[in-house]
């Protein structure tokens, strides 16, 4: 360590920077493994019941046990979202379900409905209760209320500004979790039953069909009953919509750390392996870099670029710095930004022959420009050369999902590194 480095280290130490948890979503066991391997300190998943993603794969109790076991190898925790607002018919099974979560070794539930929190305290005392963002806790008194109810952590509503977060942290001694990346309800979370009204699907029990992103025409009533109402749009104007751009805070990691927030949460239990690994990887590097040396921290352009490779919607910084304006919403057709796709998973690399063994995840063939990335700063691109199957037969392309293929890769790789290809 040079003198300068040790001075910087002690500066970080003097400022007592608190290391935040990086919390990632995982829609299934593979995504969970990747999230943890790419640097998540904790992962949240959904079970078969009581979660808000009824369309996701979701975990069985057995898979939860595997998830906990795998995560523990990395010292990572597993949380389960039980964030519905229950109806009468849901009440009976809650206790048995929560007991099973405790048995599976789940560290915490993320709950919105107080009856689920109360039941957890009774039947699964080893499982922490984290108050979900669905409760829209946006002031310190409300946060204090949940602390007094026994919750060690409150996930704030996404309407909370950085300044408000700082005040909440100052006033209440409880862990604070905030969303830093991903899609957001444009309403106060939970305060929306558009899906119920449009499609008879209960949004607060996982049936949300994202009606806020649909296109609407805006009119004003004409006082005159015989005249037509007044359209509040010109013919070539885009339609009205309630669609919020996705959140991203990679540029504000230092401010987030300084605010004292305990957990940085990434949204996206429905997102792909490629998305989860890429986003976790970028935030992991930013967080570690700042904590390592806050005075010399520089936001790397590379992290931003990485995020954009996975993003499938436009991005913005939500309510953190000011109230979302026109530029923070999507009017008209949604841009599809996603520019890269998961092409293969690295299973093995032979340093002597430079031959990589790769499991195919999407079509690729020789001459394709691909990119490899992994935790610990692996990031390079190269052209695909001759591809062989696992018996040594030359292939004109890797066509089959999960097919194991081999080809020469010039730089070293590690198992679980990802190969991505450019789209379009």
């Amino acid at each position, binding site marked *: 360590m040079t003198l300068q480095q040790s001075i910087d280290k002690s500066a970080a130490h003097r400022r007592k920077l608190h290391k935040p948890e990086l919390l990632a979503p995982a829609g299934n066991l593979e995504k969970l493994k990747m999230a943890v391997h790419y640097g998540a300190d904790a992962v949240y998943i959904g079970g078969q019941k009581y979660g808000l993603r009824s369309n996701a794969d979701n975990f069985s109790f057995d898979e939860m046990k595997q998830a906990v076991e795998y995560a523990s190898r990395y010292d990572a925790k597993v949380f389960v979202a039980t964030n519905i607002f229950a109806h009468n018919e849901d009440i009976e099974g809650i206790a048995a379900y929560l007991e099973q979560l405790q048995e599976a070794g789940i560290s915490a539930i993320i709950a919105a409905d107080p009856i689920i929190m109360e039941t957890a305290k009774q039947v699964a005392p080893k499982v922490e209760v984290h108050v979900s963002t669905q409760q829209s806790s946006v002031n310190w*008194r*409300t946060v204090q209320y949940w602390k007094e109810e026994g919750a060690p952590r409150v996930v704030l509503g996404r309407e909370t500004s950085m300044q408000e977060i700082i005040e909440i942290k100052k006033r209440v001694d409880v862990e604070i979790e905030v969303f830093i990346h991903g899609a957001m309800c*444009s309403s106060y979370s939970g305060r929306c039953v558009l899906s119920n009204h449009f499609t008879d699907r*209960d949004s607060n029990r996982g*049936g949300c069909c994202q009606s806020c992103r649909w296109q609407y025409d805006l009119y004003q009533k004409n006082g005159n009953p015989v005249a037509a109402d007044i359209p509040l749009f010109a013919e070539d104007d885009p339609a009205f919509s309630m669609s919020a751009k996705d959140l991203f805070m990679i540029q504000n990691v230092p401010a987030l750390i300084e605010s004292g927030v305990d957990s940085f949460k990434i949204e996206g239990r429905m997102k792909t392996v490629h998305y989860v690994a890429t986003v976790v990887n970028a935030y992991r590097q930013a967080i570690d870099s700042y904590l390592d040396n806050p005075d010399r921290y520089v936001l790397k352009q590379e992290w931003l670029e990485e995020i954009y490779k996975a993003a499938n919607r436009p991005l913005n910084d939500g309510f953190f710095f000011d109230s979302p304006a026109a530029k923070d919403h999507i009017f008209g057709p949604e841009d599809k930004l996603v520019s890269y796709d998961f092409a293969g998973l690295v299973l093995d690399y032979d340093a002597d022959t430079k031959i990589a063994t790769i499991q195919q995840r999407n079509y690729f063939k020789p001459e394709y420009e691909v990119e490899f990335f992994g935790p610990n700063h692996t990031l390079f691109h190269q052209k695909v050369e001759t591809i062989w199957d696992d018996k040594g037969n030359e292939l004109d392309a890797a066509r089959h999902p999960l097919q194991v293929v081999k080809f020469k890769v010039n730089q070293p790789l590690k198992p679980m590194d990802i190969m991505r290809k450019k789209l379009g």
Partner: protein
Amino acid sequence: MNRNKPELLVTAGSLEEIQMYVKAGADAVNIGENNFGVRMPGNFTTLDIKEAIETAHRLHAKVYVSINNLYHNDDLEALSVYLQQLSEWKVDAVVFGDPAIIMLMKELNIQIPLHWNAEMLSTNYATATYWERKGANRVVLARELNLEEIHDTKRNLQSMEVQVQVHGMTNIYHSRRELLQNYAAHQGKSSVKQDDFSMEKEMYLVEEEREGLQFPIFEDDNGTHVMSAEDICLIEVLDELLEVDLDSLKIEGIMKSAAYNEVVIACYREAIDQYYANPEEYECNPAWLERIKKVQDEHRELTFGFLFKEQVY
């Protein structure tokens, strides 16, 4: 069996409306001050509220004040003062959703009856019981519940009162975002100019595949609010609803004229009285629905809401 008649509650926007509505048959009114209450049919200043409470009490009607927003740090100080005043003025109940209200009342050491109203989130009896333990004496049920759920909820509650909306529109979306303003800004040089997005402007949304349905939308200091395209009207099925004794039936008066609300109140008043005079012999008088239909906006259908619906997820 001695059955308790439910109270007939209506939201009111002014002192005049309170007098009118009580005269038309309302037992209680729900009012609010725009700094603290959201989606109220009119604004009462703090002093108006004092007068409203006195007026209503003279007329033997109750006054519930909505403090039903989701609050931010900056709101808390003023909220404390307001709660203190309401307590002194002997408001009959505060309608709340944010637990900050419970914290503030504890700190101020004041006791005001509390009605727990988390809009679409008040969906089961067990959670209602939870809020009862925290001091609420009434649950205002989500309008997205069906008949069976409403009845089961009431049956499963010992002493907590149950309030159900029987008429009017409902809020279906609340965002803190200034979505209408943002849309106008996005349109930029568009020929369409608009800078007032209040509920008085009577704006509405039409979804591409649901022509004919008009969803009222407005924006205020609390963000953007979208309302239902239909009005709940349960007068024809009041006997079914009242198979289990409910404690309060609410008429939502927001975005309706006082004259409209007066007609609606009068009809429900008659219906409730007639039902309780002799439940076995009760029949819905078609004239009630006729009277309501006469004043009903032709673009807004009267429906049973979610009363007979099965939702999936």
